[in-house]
C-alpha cells in the first residue's frame, strides 16, 4: 500500500510530533474508558482488554497505556491478517471481527473489533478494540474446555468477518455469532461497546487529520514507531552484549509420564537488538496450556517491557525485539491444537523466564518468579429462592504474590503478571449473582517464598455452594509442581491447586480440571502462591522477619525453619515478640551446614517422613526439593529430580559456601 506512505519532505517539528504522539495515546486511552464504561462482560470490566491504533499496513502506532499485558505484541498481527484477508474489498463503514488464535490472536475469548479509517477515499489507519468476552460458546461455560483435543471442542472460532459492511450492520452475521454464545444479549452488548470505541477513535483521528493534514499525521505514525525503536535501541546499546539462558516449566504433559514440560529461553543482546530463541522448548502438550505464536510473542515483548517501563508500546519495539518460536513446540502450537489455557500455561512461563534473564542484566530491576495466573469457573442453574433455575456463571481469579526484588520484598496480593491491571472481583457482588457464599478471602501465612527479600504473600479464597442444579466446576492454573521459584538464593512459594470438600471428605483436585459436578453444600478452597524469594533467606535481617511475624505474614515456626530466626512469643495481644539472637545464630549455622545435603537426601525417605507427619509440605518443597502428587501423596521421582536441579541453579548455587 505504497500510496499511503507519507511524503518524506514533511517537516515534523519536535512540537508537532510530541503533540501528535500524546494525542495518539489520549485517543487509545479514551477507547479504554469508553469500553470499560459500556461493556457487558465483567472480564472486560475488570480490565481484560486492550485498544490500539494501527497504520494502514496494520502496524501498531500506539497501544493503550493501561492495557493488559497478554495482548501486547499481538494486535498488529491480527490487523495485518485481516487487511490481507479483505484486500481489495476494504471500504469506509466496514467493521471487522476476529478472534482466531492462529491468526496472531491469543485465545478465542479475546474478540477483536477493527474499523478501517478512510480520509478522502484512502485507507489511512485501523482502530482496534480487543476484549475478553465472558463466553464464546463451546461445551464449557466461559469457553474453557480442558477436555478439548482441538479448537473445535473449545468454542466459536471467528476468522476475519465483516460485521458492518460499508455501513450496513450485518444482523444475520452478528446473530449467528452471538446465538452460539451463552448470554447472547450480553455478547451483543460487548460487540456494540467495542464497535463504538473504534468509532470514537476514528472521529478523533480524523479531527487530527483535519487539523494537521494527512501527510503530517502519517509522518507522525511512522515517527512514533521510529521513536520507540530509537529509545529501545538507545537503551539496549548501553548494555553489554552476551547470551543468557534459562528454563521454566509447566507442571506436566497429561499425555506423558510425570516430569516437567520445559520452556527453554536463550536471550542474546547484540548491539542495539535483543533476540530470544525458544527452540529448545518441548513439543506441545496434551491439554490447552499450549500457546500460539501470537501469545508467546506477547510474553516475549511483555517480559522485556517490564524492564523498560517507560518505553511506549508500538510496532517500533517489534523491530528491536525478535523471537524464534518453532512451530510444534509448546510455545507455538499449530492449528487445531487447543490453546485456550495458554495464559496459565506457556505464557507466564515465558514471561517469568525472561524476568530471570533480565534480572541478571539489569540487577536493579531484578525480580523472582510471580504466582501463576489461575481461574476457577462454576456454572449451572441457580436454585436459590426466586432464581427459578436461572443460569449462573461464577468466574473467579485471584491476586497473589510477586517475586522478591533486589532490596525490596515482593508485592503482596497483586494481580497476575499476565495483566497487572486485572482487578479481582467483589465477593459481595458475586454472592448476589451466584449461589455460593464465600468463606474466606485472605492472605496465606508462609505463602511467600523465603529470601533475603521475600516474595509477596499469596492469598486463599474459598466458598460453599448454595442451592443449585446441573452445576459443574472447572479450574485452570499451573505450578503445583513447578512451584513459584526464587532467584539469587531465594526459595519457592507454595503449590497451587483446588481442594474440594464434600460430605466431609476433602480431595486435592490439582490445577487443571473441568466439568466436575458440584452441588449444594460442597466446599472448595484454593490458594495462590506467594512470589519466589530473592537472595539467601539466612541473610534476611532478623528484624524484618520479626515484623513479618507480628503481621502473621510468616509464622513463628517457619521463621525458624525457613529463615533460621528463632522468635519467642511474649504477648501477642500487643504484638510483643522477641528474637533470640544466640538461638538464631545457632539455627542459621545449622541450616547453612546442612542445606545442600538436604537437597541430596533420598526422596523416598523424605516422602516417608512426610507421611509420618514428621515433615510438612513446605519442608518438602523448600528444604528437600521433593515434589509429590499432592492428591495421592505419591513421590514424583522425575519431577523431584528436575525440581532439585531448579533449586540448585536458582538457590543453592547462590548461597555463600560454608567455610
Amino acid at each position: 500500500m505504497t500510496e499511503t506512505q507519507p511524503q518524506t519532505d514533511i517537516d515534523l517539528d519536535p512540537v508537532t510530533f510530541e503533540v501528535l504522539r500524546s494525542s495518539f495515546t489520549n485517543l487509545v486511552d479514551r477507547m479504554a474508558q469508553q469500553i470499560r464504561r459500556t461493556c457487558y462482560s465483567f472480564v472486560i470490566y475488570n480490565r481484560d482488554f486492550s485498544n490500539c491504533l494501527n497504520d494502514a499496513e496494520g502496524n501498531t502506532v500506539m497501544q493503550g497505556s493501561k492495557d493488559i499485558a497478554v495482548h501486547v505484541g499481538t494486535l498488529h498481527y491480527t490487523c495485518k491478517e485481516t487487511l490481507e484477508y479483505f484486500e481489495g474489498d476494504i471500504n469506509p463503514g466496514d467493521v471487522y471481527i476476529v478472534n482466531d488464535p492462529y491468526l496472531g490472536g491469543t485465545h478465542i475469548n479475546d474478540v477483536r473489533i477493527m474499523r478501517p479509517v478512510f480520509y478522502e477515499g484512502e485507507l489511512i489507519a485501523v482502530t482496534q478494540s480487543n476484549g475478553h468476552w465472558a463466553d464464546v460458546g463451546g461445551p464449557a461455560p466461559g469457553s474453557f474446555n480442558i477436555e478439548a483435543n482441538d479448537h473445535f471442542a473449545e468454542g466459536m472460532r471467528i476468522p476475519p468477518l465483516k460485521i458492518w459492511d460499508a455501513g450496513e450492520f450485518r444482523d444475520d452475521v452478528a446473530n449467528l455469532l452471538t446465538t452460539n454464545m451463552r448470554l447472547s444479549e450480553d455478547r451483543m452488548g460487548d460487540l456494540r461497546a467495542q464497535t463504538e470505541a473504534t468509532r470514537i477513535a476514528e472521529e478523533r483521528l480524523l479531527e487530527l487529520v483535519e487539523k494537521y493534514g494527512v501527510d503530517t499525521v502519517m509522518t507522525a505514525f511512522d515517527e512514533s514507531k521510529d521513536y520507540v525503536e530509537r529509545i529501545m535501541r538507545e537503551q539496549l546499546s548501553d548494555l553489554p552484549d552476551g547470551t543468557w539462558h534459562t528454563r521454566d516449566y509447566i507442571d506436566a504433559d497429561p499425555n506423558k509420564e510425570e516430569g516437567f514440560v520445559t520452556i527453554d529461553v536463550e536471550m542474546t543482546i547484540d548491539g542495539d537488538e535483543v533476540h530470544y530463541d525458544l527452540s529448545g522448548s518441548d513439543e506441545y502438550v496434551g491439554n490447552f496450556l499450549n500457546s500460539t505464536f501470537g501469545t508467546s510473542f506477547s510474553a516475549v515483548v511483555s517480559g522485556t517491557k517490564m524492564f523498560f517501563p517507560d518505553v511506549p508500546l508500538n510496532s517500533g519495539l517489534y523491530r528491536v525485539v525478535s523471537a524464534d518460536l518453532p512451530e510444534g513446540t509448546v510455545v507455538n502450537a499449530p492449528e487445531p491444537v487447543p490453546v485456550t489455557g495458554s495464559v496459565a500455561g506457556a505464557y507466564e512461563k515465558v514471561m517469568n523466564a525472561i524476568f530471570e534473564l533480565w534480572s541478571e542484566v539489569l540487577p536493579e530491576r531484578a525480580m523472582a518468579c510471580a504466582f501463576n495466573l489461575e481461574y476457577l469457573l462454576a456454572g449451572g442453574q441457580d436454585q436459590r429462592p426466586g432464581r427459578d433455575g436461572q443460569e449462573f456463571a461464577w468466574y473467579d481469579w485471584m491476586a497473589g504474590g510477586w517475586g522478591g526484588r533486589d532490596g525490596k520484598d515482593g508485592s503482596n496480593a497483586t494481580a497476575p503478571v499476565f495483566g497487572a491491571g486485572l482487578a479481582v472481583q467483589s465477593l459481595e457482588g458475586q454472592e448476589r449473582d451466584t449461589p455460593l457464599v464465600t468463606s474466606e478471602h485472605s492472605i496465606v501465612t508462609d505463602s511467600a517464598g523465603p529470601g533475603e527479600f521475600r516474595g509477596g504473600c499469596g492469598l486463599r479464597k474459598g466458598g460453599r455452594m448454595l442451592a443449585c442444579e446441573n452445576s459443574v466446576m472447572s479450574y485452570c492454573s499451573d505450578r503445583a509442581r513447578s512451584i513459584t521459584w526464587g532467584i539469587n538464593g531465594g526459595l519457592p512459594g507454595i503449590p497451587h491447586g483446588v481442594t474440594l470438600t464434600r460430605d466431609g471428605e476433602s480431595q486435592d483436585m490439582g490445577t487443571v480440571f473441568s466439568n466436575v459436578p458440584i452441588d449444594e453444600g460442597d466446599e472448595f478452597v484454593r490458594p495462590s502462591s506467594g512470589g519466589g524469594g530473592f537472595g539467601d533467606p539466612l541473610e534476611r535481617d532478623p528484624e524484618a522477619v520479626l515484623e513479618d511475624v507480628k503481621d502473621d505474614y510468616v509464622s513463628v515456626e517457619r521463621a525458624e525453619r525457613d529463615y533460621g530466626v528463632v522468635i519467642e512469643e511474649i504477648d501477642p495481644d500487643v504484638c510483643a515478640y522477641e528474637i533470640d539472637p544466640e538461638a538464631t545464630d545457632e539455627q542459621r549455622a545449622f541450616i547453612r551446614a546442612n542445606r545442600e545435603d538436604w537437597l541430596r537426601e533420598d526422596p523416598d525417605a523424605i516422602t516417608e517422613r512426610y507421611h509420618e507427619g514428621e515433615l510438612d509440605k513446605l519442608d518438602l518443597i523448600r528444604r528437600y526439593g521433593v515434589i509429590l502428587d499432592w492428591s495421592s501423596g505419591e513421590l514424583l521421582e522425575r519431577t523431584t529430580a528436575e525440581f532439585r536441579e531448579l533449586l540448585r541453579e536458582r538457590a543453592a548455587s547462590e548461597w555463600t559456601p560454608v567455610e
Partner: protein
Amino acid sequence: MRRAGIDIGGTFTDVILFDEETGDVEIEKTPSTPANPADGVINGLTKSDTEIGDLEFFSHGSTVGTNALIERELPRIGLITTEGFRDVHEIRDGTKEDLWDAYEDVADPYVQRRDRLEVAERIDYAGNVVEPLDEETVREVVRIFEKRGIDTIAVSLINAYVNGEHEQRVEEIVAAEYPAAFVCTSHEILPEMFEHERTSTTVINAALVPVVRDYLTDLEAKLDERGYDGDVLAMHSGGGVMTTEAIAYYAARIANSGPTAGAIASQYIADQCGFENAIGFDMGGTSADVSLTHQGDIEMTDEWAVEYGYPIMFPSTDIETIGAGGGSIAWIDDGGSLRVGPNSQGADPGPACYLRGGDKPTTTDANVVLGWVDPDRFLGGDMNATAEPARKVIQRDIADPLGLELTEAASAIEQIAVANMCNAVRLVSTSKGFDPRDFALVAFGGAGPLHAAHVAREMNVPQVIIPPYPGINSALGCLLVDVEHDLSQTFIADAAADIVDDIETAFADMEAEIRERLDEEGIDESEMQMDHEIKMRYTGQWRSLEVGCSRPLESMETIRERFHRQHEQTYAYSDEGQPVEVYGLHVTGRGVVEKPSFPEIDSGKADTARRTTRDAYFEAAGEFIDTAVYERASLGAGATLEGPAIVEQMDSTVVVPPNATAEVDETGTIILTV
C-alpha cells in the same frame, strides 16, 4: 453582613473577606501553619482590616485532611472485620497503578495487618443472618485494641450494606467495654455494595476523624475567643459546606475540599459572566486541576482516591489533575523527544529564574525567555528573580541538544506544556461527550491565566474568563456554597417493574435523615432543597449512570426514557430495546445560604492602565513583538485590549496572544475571545 472565605492550602492560607453593605473585598495570603492549621487562619484574618468579631459568616476549605492522607500522618487505627476477611483492605482489587514497573508498588494499607482483627458472624447477600454475631469474639477484639492503646476503630463486615445489625451491635459493645474509643461503622458511612470500597472509605474516614476534629475544635475555639459566634463551616468534596459537628464525624468528606472550592468558584464566575458551561483550569507550581460545569452543574464522581487503590466513595467534584505547573521540568527523553513534566521543581528550588538553586529548565523559565513574564515582578516584585539563568538552562538542556535557537526551544517547551494541559481538558470534556466549543475556560491559579488562551485555542474553546483574583479562587469558592448533605444506597431492581412506590419510600427515608441533619445545623425547613438521582444501567452492564428525577416520581417509563437519552449523550449510543435496571439511589439535600454578589468597578479605558511595553514572542507570529503591558488593578470596566498584550497583577499574569481580544466586565473579570 461580613463574610470570610478561607482556603488552607499546603503552602499558603488564602483569605477573602467580603462586606455585603459596602461591597468591599479584601484579600490576604499568608503562609500556612501545618502544625496547627488554625493559626494560619487567624494570622490571615488578623492581617486584614476586618475584626474577627465583626464576621457573620465563616466558611473554609482545607487540605488538612488531604495532606494527612498524603503524608500518612494518621493515628494508629484498628479494623474489625468478618472472620476470614481481615485482608480485604490489603488485597483491594489487586491491581497496580503502574502496570509496567515492577518496582513501583501500590501504597501500603492504612491499617496494618496486625491491627485488623476478626469477629465470627456472617450475613448473606439478602441480609439474612447466616451466622449470628459471636459477641465473645467482639469483646476479645475490643480488649486487645484497648490493650494496644488503639482508640480509633473502623468496623466493616461482609454484606453490612444490606443489614447493619451486626455492625451496630459491635459498636454498642465497644461503647460499653471501651467508652474512650471512637467507632466508625461501614453501614453508616457508606451503605453500598462492594466490600473493599466500603471498607476503604470507612477506614479512611475513621483515620481522619481525630485529625480533622482536633484542628476544627481548635479553630472554633480560636474564632470564638475573638468574638465570632456563627457556624464554622467547612467545604466538603461534594461541593457543599457542613458544620464542624458533621465534618467531625464524616471526616473523609473533606478530603478533596480545596480543589472542589476552586471548581465552585469557576462555576460561579462563569455564571456571573453568563456561561452555564465552563471548564475550570487551575494551574499552580506543580500541577493543574481541571474541572467541568455543564448546564450549571459541576461534574461529579463517586469514586475518588488520594492514593491509588484506596477509594473514598463519597461524591466529589470530578477533577483531573496532571503534573503540569509552572515548575514542570522540560527534558529530552531517550528517543530524542522533548517532554515537559510530570516532574516538577515545585516552589523550592523552583524554576532556574528564581535563583534558589534550581538548575533545570521549567515552563516558567520558558515563559521568561518568551518575555511573557517579567522576573522582576514575581509576586509583585517581592522575589529576587532574573532572566539570565532561565536562558542558560534552556540553551544548555534543550536548545543545544535539539539544534534549536533559544527562542524556538522556549516556545517548544510552552507548546508541549499546553499540549499536556489540553489532554487533561480532553479527559474532562471530549472524553465524556462534551464539546469544548460549548464551554468557556475559567483560568486561575498563579499560572492558569498565562497559558489559558493557548489552551483554549487548541481546544476550540471560544472564550477564556479570568477572575479578578485568580490566586485566591478556592477561598472565594468557600463563600459561594450551600450547606449540603448527601446519602446513597444500593437498590437493585428491574426498571421495567412497578417500583415507583419502593423508590418513593426509600427516597422518603433518605430525605428524612438529611432533613434531620440540616435541621441540626439550624437550616430552616423552607430553605431546604432536595435533589434525587437514580443510578441506572442496561441490565448486564457494569457501570451505571445517575439519572436525575424529582419527587413525586411520574413513572418508570419517563425515568427509563431519560436514562436512554443520557446514555446516548455520554456514550454516543443507546438502545431502547434493551432491558434497564436500577442500581442505586442518591439524594442530596441543600440548605440554601445567601450568596454574596460582587461590586461593580469603575469604568475606564485600557490606556490608563498601560504601564510599559516589552518584547514578547508568539509562535503564531513567529517573532518577538513589541507588546503592551497593563496593570490589572488599574483596568476599569469596559476596557478592551487587543492582543498581543500582557496584564500583570500581584499573583498572576494574563497573556493575550495576537488576534485575541480582552474585555474587562463590570466586576473586573477579564474575558478573552480567542
